[in-house]
């Protein structure tokens, strides 16, 4: 009972803060921050797009609107039919995101915990204590996940700015929930919708297939086999379902935007060729403004390949824990997207407690936390100095975004190392040398 009260209390605090700021005079300033609103998720552009749509001009002709037609119609529906309720809708979406993130990490943690009992039973009491994900903690952690999404300034700011990433985050969290509930059709549909909207999450199909396949294997058999052998038909079914829905969505958009393929160029083309150099927290803008034009194509390919490439090695390494793969890919998305915003950070920040059993093996927790904090504080200051006071220049701001991305990279590597280390211990037991200290582990090729 008390836990429900706590959940309700935290969520209502989150709602109150969001509504308060949404109706304040700060809303406009916040929504114009480049860290929050990018060309692909700003609500202002959404309004612009629906206006053009109403006037009978294709929103994809110019350079204002870069989202997909179905979402455009969704925004126009919102604006036409429930204009006064739009802030409330944004807040509610965030609340649902928080809830479903909490529930899904609860489910995933319980699953993980059950799976690991087989490994853990081999160990002595003391070792088990060190490695185990404690059952009584899972609820606590799920609660933390929820509270962080509800109250972290990053998700609050995203919601106040009415960035359309609020919807993307909602869909992502629902995707996690449906996948861990083993709902194949729904999760495929959600993933197709997300990939259709922002393209890059298309790589989440790999962890999704792995999650679904693993859920197919009955728990009793699961640990008897050293390597999971996926059923080909089932994999193909998931993949086919995803592709059919995705193409259905695209064809549907073709009809929605009056039989024209223009939207492809304006949404996916915009994402892939990166013509907009408005500063954001990502790495693209500075690099491409500084570069000579004839290298552009080369580096464009390099950058874009980077965003997709890591799925392959990661899915090979993390084949035993697709949930973790999903989580790491979320960080990678935020790192390599051409137009990232802090909403991408907000969602994986909330999910971090789910992996708190890895924190013991991490080395740079403090450094990463300090880097994120100082970047969040310094970015507005540098922006003020560069744009408003005119005393600094773009290098100052870029320095901050570079530090932010370095922090993300450190976080990923640290998490991966912690994960492999724990996996090693789970398989081999905690090895200790004569003095009783844990032995040094090194990665071999």
């Amino acid at each position, binding site marked *: 009972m008390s836990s429900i009260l706590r959940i309700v209390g935290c969520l209502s605090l989150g709602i109150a803060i969001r509504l308060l700021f949404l109706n304040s005079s700060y809303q406009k300033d916040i929504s114009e921050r480049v860290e929050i609103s990018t060309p692909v998720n700003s609500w202002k552009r959404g309004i612009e797009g629906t206006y053009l749509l109403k006037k009978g001009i294709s929103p994809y002709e110019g350079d204002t609107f870069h989202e997909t037609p179905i979402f455009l119609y969704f925004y126009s529906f919102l604006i036409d039919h429930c204009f006064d309720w739009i802030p409330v809708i944004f807040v509610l979406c965030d609340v649902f995101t928080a809830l479903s993130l909490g529930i899904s990490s609860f489910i995933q943690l319980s699953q993980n915990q059950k799976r690991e009992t087989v490994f853990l039973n081999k160990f002595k009491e003391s070792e088990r204590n060190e490695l185990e994900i404690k059952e009584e903690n899972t609820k606590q952690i799920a609660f933390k996940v929820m509270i962080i999404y509800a109250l972290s300034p990053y998700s609050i700011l995203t919601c106040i700015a009415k960035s359309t990433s609020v919807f993307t985050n909602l869909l992502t969290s629902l995707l996690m929930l449906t996948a861990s509930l083993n709902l194949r059709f729904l999760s495929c549909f959600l993933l197709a919708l997300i990939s259709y909207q922002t393209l890059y999450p298309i790589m989440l199909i790999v962890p999704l297939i792995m999650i679904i396949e693993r859920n197919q294997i009955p728990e009793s058999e699961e640990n008897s086999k050293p390597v999971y052998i996926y059923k080909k038909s089932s994999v193909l079914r998931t993949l086919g379902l995803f592709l059919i829905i995705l193409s259905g969505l695209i064809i549907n958009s073709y009809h929605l935007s009056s039989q024209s393929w223009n939207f492809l160029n304006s949404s996916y083309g915009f994402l892939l060729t990166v013509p907009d150099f408005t500063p954001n927290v990502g790495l693209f803008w500075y690099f491409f403004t500084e570069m000579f034009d004839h290298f552009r194509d080369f580096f464009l390919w390099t950058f874009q390949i980077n965003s997709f490439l890591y799925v392959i090695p990661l899915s090979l390494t993390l084949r035993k824990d697709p949930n973790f793969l999903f989580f790491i890919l979320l960080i990678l998305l935020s790192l390599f997207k051409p137009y990232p915003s802090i909403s991408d950070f907000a969602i994986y920040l909330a999910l971090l407690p789910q992996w708190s059993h890895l924190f013991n093996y991490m080395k740079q927790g403090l450094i990463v*936390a300090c880097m994120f904090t100082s970047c969040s504080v310094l970015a507005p*200051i540098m922006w003020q100095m560069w744009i408003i*006071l005119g005393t600094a220049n773009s290098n100052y701001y870029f320095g901050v975004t570079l530090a932010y991305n370095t922090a993300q990279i450190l976080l990923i590597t640290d998490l991966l190392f912690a994960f492999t280390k724990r996996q090693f211990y789970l398989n081999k037991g905690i090895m200790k040398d004569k003095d009783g200290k844990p032995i040094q582990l*090194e990665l071999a090729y």
Partner: protein
Amino acid sequence: MGILTSDKSRKQGHILRALREHCNKLCVLAFVCGIFSFALLIHEKYCDSTYFSENALLPGLVNREFKEASFASDLYGALKNESVNYNNKIPYSWITSQFRRIGLEVYRQKFILKYPFGKQYKYKGENVYAILRAPRSASTEAIVLSTPYRGFDSIHGTTLPGIAMMIAIAKYFLSKNYWAKDIIFLISDHELVGMQAWLDAYHDIEKNAYSSIDYEKLEGRSGPIQGAINLEIHSDQNSRVELKIEGLNGQLPNLDLFNVAVELATRESITPTFHGQSHPFAADHWEIWKEHALTIGSMMISQAIGLPTGAHGLFQKFAIQSLTLEAIEKRQTDSSHVSVSFLHIGRLIEGIFRSLNNLLEKFNRSYWFYLLPSTRRYISIGYYMISFGLLVIPSLFKALNLYLNLNRDDETRDAKESFSLWNVLPSAFFCHFFGASLASLPFLIEKWASYQVNYGYETQNILYYSLLSFSLILMLNPFLKGQSAEQLKAYKCIALLNLALLFSCLSLLNISLAMFLTLIYIPIACSISTQSRFFLLNLIYKLFVILLHPLVIGYICLLAMSIWYDPQEAAVTHAHRAFEAHKKTILFYVEDWYIYGNWTYLFGTAFLFPLWLQLWYLL
């Protein structure tokens, strides 16, 4: 990748071990090094000579030919007679007619200042400005020559000679055909308020319900303003020209503009001074060092205060490079024969304007971050940041030390929840929340202004006593205190990290304030020990932390100022005077926040106070 993969705590490096074992020594060493390196930077040999990084300025390349000095004197005489009849209001008709007679377009702009507190009085004012259209280009860029209007009996010294000078200069400028930028001659009413109204209108700043200045739109405009010179000439016989650069919130103009002014003044054989000091020439290094230290000290104090030293301070907010030329009146007792007349000042202004006229683009080199030990020497950000970093780094050392020791204890004992740094977050959050609510106090006072008037309370008292009582309540609040020793260590770790972050951010915006605060905060914050066993020691720590309270710092500064100005008075008088001044100063900062966007009050309440609170809860 060693740092990423390596697991061995023995191999983890001598650095971390040194930090663990010799943290206190390292802290003291770094702090002392910081102070010494800064002292060394002031030394003649280690600070750089100023130079022109913008070659387009070409100062002094052309002969300066201004010769309307007698016209200026005539105007000054006429204006003096005229202003007597106007009772401290601008003699609009006289000024407009003078500008018109020369052949310039003249405009006026009305504005109303709505005082946000108390009876919410409204003050009316009107600016006058004239535009000289550049013969060589369309009005795409402009330079401003401004002066605030002060009548003949103003306590700050009249600026009537400056206005006469301005008109004479305008006449001379109009006769020349080399202008590529429009020149705007601006006379502002009510000092800075008029300037702010004019600048807001010029840049079309959106007015909303909260803005305290209501202004008319400008009838005549020009392009973006590239530079501005603000004149404060008090007399027709002057001894030297004082250059003032510190602007709102401690912002500085581009060093090149300052260099131009110094160079051209020297060429006109005017002594340019900065904080009362000209460039020292002496054989003795120690003498030079002392003068440098005095100048840089007084510059840093004035920058740290965060108030503009003249109307130039408001231009800087709009990314316009500007400075004030103040001609210091020659006293009868002055022994020197040097006299700066209208002719010299006119030629100085002409030179500066021709330099600005040469500019091809905005000032773009990164000389916005500097400290000046004399008019010809500067310390750039690259050097002073080293000293500043050394001053701040003890807090990082100490925090890391605490963190490493937290982790080490983990190995021996069972991991307790109270160790974790995460558990500090709620307490830190509440501290910041209280800070933010203190910062929004003026809005509440503004909202209930009518009650306040009915009951006859003064705004300054309400503000002052609510700040005091709020901090007292928070000081006595037992809920946010750390309980166990380990928890307190975690609190301290976070508080120190927070301090380092705040001061390093501040150093980018206002290095002087950051430096002064670091000097007093870091030693105390690093040396207080949590949960001391001796009652007396604990009391002393508490006393030290109370001294760091933003309000107490303000009070001590005012007290020191009062003693500095008349040392003969009794101590009680000083204490009382500082107390009264303290109330006024806080209200003054709040007013400045409302009208000009001075963030000192905001910084003190929303940023510094929460940190202080965190330190307080350690004890």
